[in-house]
């Protein structure tokens, strides 16, 4: 009996649902000082004098620390681990600004007080003399260097990165094209808005020199290395713990100023220190996602076969480079031809600074942007040719027999079988029936128009082969570490370097090990997210945990079984090859009296009374695994929208997703990831945008104004799957954590444009708000519709 492949309910949920799980803000730390940040209200301003006298006279306020006060707390500036080009402009900046604030929310001073309330009150007592400077908000304006944000760089341009394997082939393809599509799409900025805001707590042991730092982070292991590099605390004196973490979506894949500041205060004042982010701070000072202008061109022959894709991105880094920000557009660089067999390819990206919150990884990180551009452009090609969006895709899919497929961008797509997947989605959504209904409504001039939108996607995840990361100049590897221990009394500990923050790792890892060892999932404990318990790891992002971390666990479990087999053969006095292993029991064919359980063998390994010569005691195995390739999940998503042409309101009425993530360990968790992912992608299409005014002020920093959709705005999704195993790992598994987000945004926007196509509308900026849609209908106003007349 195996559990892999079953819909096992998540082990971690009772603790989470009853409040037993402890998040950073739940920690009880006697004597901890609370920090509150004095943040710049200006997007760009020189910092003059800072007068803290009023704050220092307030109850409970113990200190106010400025950038210069804390300058010696850092041995290096804030880290950026991904210098994508040798000449990348990376402005030096520190956790507390020294002389200039470059976005609203930039930290100017830190208030230390005996309570959270006193710290918050203290902020109002710090008087900062700002000299406001001209502000750069728009990306193309930034490129002109009308205002240069970082004097030392002399330009707002950070880097230009190219992937043009054969420029002549691209030029030729466009020169000989029968159809050319040229589109510009805007990727608005998004606020990740994890349910738990960030938080940090640091407890020093001043005499031993050790520090324990708790953070609501996705990356305790990476953070520990970066804290050593930036704060200069010796790595062996640092313990980093990510306790229960309430979502991240990439926003907690970073090294933040507040982590360094809390560590610095605890170190300088020799007291425990803590900080919990407010929701408004989360909007201003946690990274934002997306923020790109995308120019994409397709060349196609007379049959609609795409012969070349040419892309240029202008990407918004915000005020400074955060941990992996420069690499985010490049995670999409290889995917702007989608899952289509395109021989010629050109990608360039220029990234610029603006006086806005820094950007970085947000669910999908580069791949949603790429998928959006190619999927919108494929629909544009279909419209140009007068063929269906399903047909244009079928004509261009990488053929199944071409796998493993060498892409024009230089990747090897591991496995794929695209056409049957799309066929299944079309069938589930009742495509022909709905197109007929659409035609009927158009004919009747129905005020509620119907739109259907397809998005077929492939993405690269399971980050990542370390050598590929090296070629992209990423500052670390992409392996993952695992240890499997069968304890003396037969229960099991699994130690992983992956760091869950909502993914259900404890359940999934238990299932993998349960099947390998033949033990019950309840007899397996998964340990993670504490560098004292799990000393090495590369953490959780990029849909990597199962494909990379899961593989390391499976390999460690296999090694445990191998060792147990050797002990069993020794003690039963049979050859190893004569042993069968099933259900946790080693047996000998034809000798029913000879058997040993893996639990019994663990005890034998613990006593070490009778082990083969030279064998180490204990039934443990450790593996660090570096994947040979990415994995390439794919799928077909179809959105059905109704548009009220009187008001412009877009209602998502049906949504079909057929995903292929290879073999599934737990379909329930897979579906949960897809559900949340779709919701987040729909949010970009219809609801969310970080709106900045011309002064660089964020206009919607509250959850009243920043519209994260709820279940009320979403239909019940129809999910199905195909199964094309990956050859990249022994489980045949591919990642699924980001696929829903990657696929859904273009599906919805293609549906919106499809509904509005009778008006001649070919694009709507995201989010497709009611007013934007209504305005577009008004602008189209040829009288062919009843839109706008009450």
């Amino acid at each position, binding site marked *: 009996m195996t559990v892999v492949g079953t819909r096992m309910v998540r082990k971690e949920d009772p603790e989470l649902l009853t409040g037993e799980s402890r998040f950073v803000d739940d920690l009880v730390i006697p004597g901890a000082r609370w920090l509150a940040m004095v943040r710049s209200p200006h997007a760009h301003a020189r910092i003059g004098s800072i007068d803290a006298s009023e704050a220092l006279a307030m109850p409970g306020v113990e200190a106010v620390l400025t950038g210069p006060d804390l300058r010696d707390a850092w041995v290096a500036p804030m880290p950026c681990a991904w210098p994508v080009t040798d000449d990348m402009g990376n402005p030096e900046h520190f956790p507390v600004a020294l002389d200039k604030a470059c976005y609203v929310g930039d930290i100017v001073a830190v208030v230390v007080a005996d309570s*959270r*309330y006193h710290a*918050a*009150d203290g902020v109002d007592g710090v008087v900062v003399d700002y000299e406001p400077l001209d502000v750069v908000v728009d990306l193309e304006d930034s490129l002109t260097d009308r205002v240069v944000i970082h004097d030392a760089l002399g330009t707002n341009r950070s880097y230009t990165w190219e992937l043009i394997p054969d420029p002549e082939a691209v030029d030729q393809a466009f020169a000989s094209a029968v159809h050319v599509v040229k589109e510009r799409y805007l990727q608005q900025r998004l606020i990740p808005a994890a349910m738990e805001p960030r938080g940090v707590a640091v407890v020093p042991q001043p005499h031993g020199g050790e520090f324990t730092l708790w953070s609501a982070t996705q990356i305790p292991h990476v953070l520990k290395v970066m804290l050593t590099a930036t704060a200069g605390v010796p790595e062996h004196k640092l313990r980093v713990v990510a306790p229960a973490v309430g979502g991240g979506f990439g926003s907690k894949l970073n090294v933040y100023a507040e982590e360094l500041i809390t560590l610095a205060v605890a170190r300088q004042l020799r007291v425990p220190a803590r900080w919990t982010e*407010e*929701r*408004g701070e989360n909007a201003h000072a946690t990274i934002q996602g997306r923020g790109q202008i995308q120019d994409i061109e397709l060349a196609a022959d007379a049959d609609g076969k795409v012969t070349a894709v040419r892309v240029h991105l202008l990407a918004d880094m915000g005020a400074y480079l955060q941990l992996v920000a420069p690499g985010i557009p490049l995670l999409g660089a290889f995917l702007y031809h989608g899952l289509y067999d395109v021989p010629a390819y050109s990608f360039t990206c220029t990234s610029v600074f603006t006086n806005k919150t820094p950007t970085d990884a947000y669910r999908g990180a580069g791949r949603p942007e790429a998928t959006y551009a190619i999927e919108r452009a494929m629909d544009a090609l279909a419209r140009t040719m007068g063929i269906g969006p399903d047909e244009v895709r079928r004509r261009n899919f990488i053929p199944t027999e071409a796998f493993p497929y060498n892409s024009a961008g230089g990747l090897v797509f591991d496995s794929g079988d695209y056409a049957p997947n799309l066929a299944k989605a079309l069938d589930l959504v009742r495509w022909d029936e709905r197109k007929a209904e659409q035609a009927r409504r158009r004919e009747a001039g129905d005020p509620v128009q119907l739109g259907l939108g397809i998005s077929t996607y492939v993405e690269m995840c399971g980050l990542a082969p370390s050598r590929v990361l090296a070629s992209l100049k990423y500052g670390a590897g992409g392996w993952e570490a695992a240890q499997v221990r069968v304890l003396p009394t037969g229960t099991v500990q699994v130690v992983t370097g992956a760091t869950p923050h909502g993914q259900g790792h404890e359940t999934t890892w238990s299932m993998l090990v349960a099947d390998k060892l033949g033990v019950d999932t309840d007899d397996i404990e998964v340990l993670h997210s504490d560098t004292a318990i799990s000393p090495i790891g590369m953490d959780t992002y990029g849909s990597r945990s199962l494909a990379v971390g899961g593989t390391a666990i499976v390999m460690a479990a296999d090694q445990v079984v191998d060792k147990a087999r050797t002990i069993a053969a020794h003690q039963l006095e049979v050859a190893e090859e004569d042993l069968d292993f099933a259900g946790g029991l080693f047996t000998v064919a034809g000798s029913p009296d000879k058997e040993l359980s893996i639990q019994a063998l663990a005890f034998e390994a613990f006593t070490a009374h009778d082990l083969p010569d030279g064998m180490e005691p204990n039934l443990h195995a450790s593996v660090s695994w570096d994947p040979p390739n990415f994995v390439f999940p794919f799928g077909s998503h179809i959105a059905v929208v109704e548009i009220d042409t*009187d*008001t412009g*309101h877009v209602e998502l009425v049906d949504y079909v997703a057929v995903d292929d993530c290879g073999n599934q360990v737990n379909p329930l968790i897979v579906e949960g990831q897809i559900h949340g992912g779709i919701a987040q992608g729909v949010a970009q299409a219809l*609801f969310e945008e970080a*709106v900045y005014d011309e002064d660089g002020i964020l*206009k*919607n920093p*509250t959850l*009243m*104004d920043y*519209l994260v*959709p*709820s279940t*009320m*705005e979403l239909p019940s999704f129809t999910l199905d799957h195909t199964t094309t195993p990956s050859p990249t790992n022994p489980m045949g598994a591919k990642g699924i954590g980001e696929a829903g987000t990657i696929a859904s945004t273009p599906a919805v926007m293609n549906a919106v444009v499809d509904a509005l196509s009778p008006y001649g509308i070919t694009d709507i900026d995201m989010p497709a*708000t*009611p*007013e934007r849609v*209504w*305005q577009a209908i008004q602008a189209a106003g040829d009288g062919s519709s009843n839109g*706008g007349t*009450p």
Partner: protein
Amino acid sequence: MIPLAFDYVRVDSTEAALDALVEHGEDAKLLAGGHSLLPLMKLRLAAPSVLIDVGRLDELSYVRDGGDHVAIGALTCHHDLETNDLLADQAPLLRHAAGQVGDPQVRHCGTIGGSIAHGDPASDLPAVLLACRATVVARGPGGERTIAADDFFTGFLETALEPTELLTEIRVPKMAGAAWSFQKFNRRAQDWAIVGVALVRNGSAGIGLVNMGPRPLRATAAEAALDAGATAAEVAAVAADATEPTDDLNATADYRRHLAQVLVRRAAQAAGA
């Protein structure tokens, strides 16, 4: 999300509430469900020095037959309104609209009196009271007075209540059998309306508009048109007359005027015009 320091007083009777208002003066704010006041305090946009908590005054939580009207205690929560049988018979517009406020958690905490007394033009219930020609009852040190809904909403987040007065009751004329409609346009179900319309034909027409000016408004020209037998389109054409909608992130003023027309047309059609 950290409010400034404040004092907190919980009262156990209407009289005690009035005494506390007199004692603490203009720096005090009454706290009922807290769903309007507390967010403002956490954003430090409001900083009352004293909160007088009237949330446990059960004596002000009721729905009663008042003869020609339904009498509703000011501290009746939205959930109790949306599930009330007397309202189903006699004031179905209010019952329905109460079920459109926020989300279930909000409706179990937020109260009709708190919503009315806050005077927010974006709230649903003020427009409903205007459409229904409701009156509210206020008690102060000098006794009790009734105020017509038309006279109650005086400006942005301003009402006719004196600082020492407590809103105690809302009286909604019975409207059994009257045609009515409530149209709420928003982007998320839980949000305030971008524009909303409450319409009832109880003898004469009443049309209240949500979020079409600095205070809750009646669409008087549209009411007159409806009473004069105009078509729904004709009623809608004057629905935005004399309104002063604002621009915000959700909508420009022009778009709000357009929405008001669309929603009034739909409401009028639903009510038989």
